[in-house]
């Protein structure tokens, strides 16, 4: 790649990291309920979309940005609890097929309802930080990208604190480790499941709000769940650190591949990685090896 100077390479790294950060956030929001209840939420992409639209509605009611963000997260978390309580809890012990298809159906319903109400229009959410690119040394950075990367770092730090220090975080880890033992220790497993879904929906909404000023709000926003799934597979399902690493790695790979070989390959690469990983190392880079029977 003689054509690629180190400056272009760094510039690409910056945009790759920001795309990867989004993947990482969504992958995290997939991994948290999966770790707690072994349910992979295929509707998570639509929860990202929903978060963006909630932000849009609140903004249209005149809520300023600093108040809109926490309000959006709270509403999204309530949605997460609602979905868990209404649809997931009755079938949490059902076969995997039921859970996969049920979460898919939930996602399809949310997307279809959004499309009915807002059609295929693209909305832009005004963010106070959006503006022209700022120079950082020899590079130029879109402030939205910097905010995405920064927010992801803060989010990951907060999650680490949450899982290490708080009672609820420790309870979630206990349930993930051994549900029966956790129940015997007096942990309310149902409450943990509900909290995991609330947390995951709120994190999804963070991704939606971060994406909104960059790509615009549209019903297909949730399509990025596919990339997040790839990221989660790379990291190994249920490994939160793996999810973040997988997201960042995928963002970088995709950006460099797109710059070098064109858009078509950029689209194909994530699925090539997905299929290769599932066939060769389904437990991901960090997942524990399972005995295969």
């Amino acid at each position, binding site marked *: 790649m003689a054509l690629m100077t180190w400056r272009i390479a760094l510039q690409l790294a910056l945009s790759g990291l920001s795309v990867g950060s989004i993947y990482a956030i969504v992958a995290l929001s997939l991994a948290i309920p999966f770790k707690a209840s072994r349910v992979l939420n295929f509707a998570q992409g639509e929860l990202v979309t929903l978060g963006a639209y909630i932000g849009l509605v609140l903004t249209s009611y005149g809520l300023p940005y600093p108040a809109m963000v926490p309000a959006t997260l709270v509403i999204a978390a309530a949605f997460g609890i609602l979905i868990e309580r209404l649809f997931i809890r009755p079938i949490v012990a059902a076969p995997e097929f039921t859970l996969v298809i049920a979460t898919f159906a939930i996602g*399809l319903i949310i997307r279809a309802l959004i499309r009915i109400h807002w059609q295929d229009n693209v909305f832009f959410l005004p963010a106070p930080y959006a503006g022209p690119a700022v120079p950082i040394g020899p590079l130029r950075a879109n402030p939205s990208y910097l905010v995405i990367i920064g927010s992801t770092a803060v989010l990951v730090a907060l999650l680490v604190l949450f899982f290490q220090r708080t009672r609820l975080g420790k309870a979630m880890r206990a349930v993930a480790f051994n549900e029966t033992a956790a129940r015997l220790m007096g942990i309310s497993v149902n409450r943990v499941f509900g909290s995991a879904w609330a947390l995951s929906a709120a994190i999804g909404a963070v991704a939606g709000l971060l994406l909104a000023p960059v790509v615009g709000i549209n019903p297909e926003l949730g399509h990025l769940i*596919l990339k997040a799934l790839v990221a989660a597979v790379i990291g190994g399902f249920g490994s939160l650190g793996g999810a973040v690493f997988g997201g960042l790695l995928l963002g970088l790979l995709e950006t460099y591949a797109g710059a070098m070989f064109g858009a078509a390959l950029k689209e194909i690469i994530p699925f090539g990685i997905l299929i290769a990983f599932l066939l060769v190392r389904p437990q991901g880079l960090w997942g524990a090896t399972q005995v295969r*029977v």
Partner: protein
Amino acid sequence: MTAIRLAHAAIAAAALFALALPLFGSSYHVYLGELILINIVAAVGLNLLTGNCGQISLCHASLMAIGAYTTALLTTRAGVTYAAALPAGIVVTTLLGASLSYPARRLSGLYLALVTLGFLEVVSIAIEEFSDLTGGVRGLKLVKPELAGWPFGTNTLYYFVLVVTALAVCGGWNIQRSRYGRAFNAVRQSAIVAQALAIPPGGIKLLAFSIAAAFAGLAGGLFTAVVGFIDPTEFDISASLRQITFIVVGGLGSVVGSVVGAVVLTLLPEALRGAKEYGDVVYSAILLGALVLAPKGIVGSLASLHSRRRAAKDGLP
């Protein structure tokens, strides 16, 4: 006993109705009938894989797309007659399905769902990228199909689809009751036990996937002849979910269930014509409701109702 006789009478009535449809129905009714038949073919194949063998497939719609595009390209670009292009489409779909399933035969559950989801995405990207060949997002218009130089009229096409569907349903019925069908059920219930009984789970899954792919390829090939126009949105994830809805609502693991599900759920949107944009919502809500409230589906629920009645009559608990 009466319930069995009732079921036979219902099947006979349905067959008569299907045969007589072009005599009294409008051309739109005939078209709708053809769509139902195609959905039946796709559902029967998917039900063997998912209902009997227990394997999740989210890419049944893309297998159908492969069958449809192969048949369409052979007839429009290569000038092959429909009679040869339809089997060719089935063969290509089966081979592609098998080549996806061969490496994935050790996977199941969630991981299989992810692989098939990835495959779905790759197929739709491929259709859009190779737009010179496939027409991309603008779709592909087809020549009117003809069988050995004899063009199809509306009614002959209907009867052709009806006969092919009847053969496919009989085939699915026989597969399900053959030793392979029982092996599918064994693998679903416990791969370990199946292995102990000298049933190779990997090989059986590969077989189930290939058979399902063949049905999907056939459905796709018929679809091109009936609709005359294909584009990638016909074969996206919501199409896969619709086919899954057919078998979940009809009854998993039952050929009759596939047929009932396909008929009911193809007609349903027609009954709700006024609320067309709610199509996806209604489908998904039905799917979700069926999964949560009636996981056995229509046929399974009727069957268990029947056996409970009989048990009550015989004085069993």
